[in-house]
């Protein structure tokens, strides 16, 4: 992403730069470790993230419940239902964070981009 791919007279320099880059990449082969460090971060950061995840999901559930209630005139019932859904969503968020599904929704493990993308980049690098 950073290398300027222009054909220039510094052929030798380019090849040396690429060799150095590859060496560097080998060093941080476990790019996961960086991600993990960010993920676990400090205990405080983790605590903050989990709290905000639970609270956010709960708040969204309650807001949906209240709005639907007001719209349909079914006063407390949809609020109760969506409060429970919101709690479940909050726990789901925490589960995903802790089980290594990352910050995001879905059931794919994050940390590594999906295989084809990773292969593309490797191929591109080899071709050069």
């Amino acid at each position, binding site marked *: *992403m950073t290398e300027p791919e222009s054909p220039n007279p510094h052929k030798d320099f380019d090849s040396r730069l690429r060799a150095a880059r590859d060496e560097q990449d080998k060093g941080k082969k476990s790019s996961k470790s960086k991600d993990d460090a960010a993920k676990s971060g400090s205990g405080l950061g983790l605590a903050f993230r989990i709290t*905000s*995840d639970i609270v*956010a999901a709960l708040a969204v559930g309650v807001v949906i419940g209240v709005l639907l209630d007001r719209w349909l005139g079914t006063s407390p019932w949809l609020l109760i239902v969506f409060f429970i859904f919101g709690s*479940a969503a909050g726990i789901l968020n925490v589960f995903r964070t802790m089980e290594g599904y990352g910050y*995001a929704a879905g059931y794919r493990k994050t940390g590594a*981009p999906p295989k084809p993308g990773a292969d593309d*980049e490797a191929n*591109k690098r080899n071709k050069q």
Partner: protein
Amino acid sequence: MAENGHQQHSPLEQFEIREIVPIHLGGLDISFTNSSLMMVIAVVLISVFLVMGIGRGATVPGRWQSAAELSYDFIAGLIRDTVGPGGRPYFPLVFSLFMFVLVGNLLGMLPYSFTFTSHIAVTFVLAAVVFILVTILGFVKHGLHFFTFFVPPGSPVYMWPLLIPIEIISYLSRPVSLSVRLFANMLAGHTLLKVIAGFIALLGVVGILPFALVVALTGLEILIAFLQAYVFAILTCLYINDALHLH
């Protein structure tokens, strides 16, 4: 505050929004406030930093250029790691968000300045922009297939009425969680600093203890300023990744 009158500084006074140039258009209050002023300063600072850094474009970078390239490289690497090569078109978005939040957080660390990221109105708009963009991106890339996002794979059909609302709430909670995290961190940190700083004068000689704590907390706050900008950027990347590659 009420019983003390106004002779004491409230720790929350720093978050007060003051009008600098009052503008009222129709029924709307779009005055230029101290918050707007800090945002303009942030944008100007970022522009100056990057334009000055890249302007020369030396092969062997100087200090300034190094710093600009470092920030570029940081986000570029982040996108490469989380989204993969397909994430390049979204670099400008992530980089702008990261720099804006980071500079906003850091500007707030200056005495007598204003932290615009400590207002949920600001952070929620930033998060909503990300959320709406990512949703549109998902629809553009996958069409109606995007809705399979809300169905956990391998779940039996009779569970769907229960699982789909939960998934949708989880999805909708993203911008809320993203914005609340940033705003709460900034608000809590700055309030804590002010509260503890208030003890220094009250305790007299023993005030050296809260003073030491304030020094330590200031360091922590600068760390949090970076960390929250980083978290904002990485979450944006992960959401883009989600929208690009559905399971």
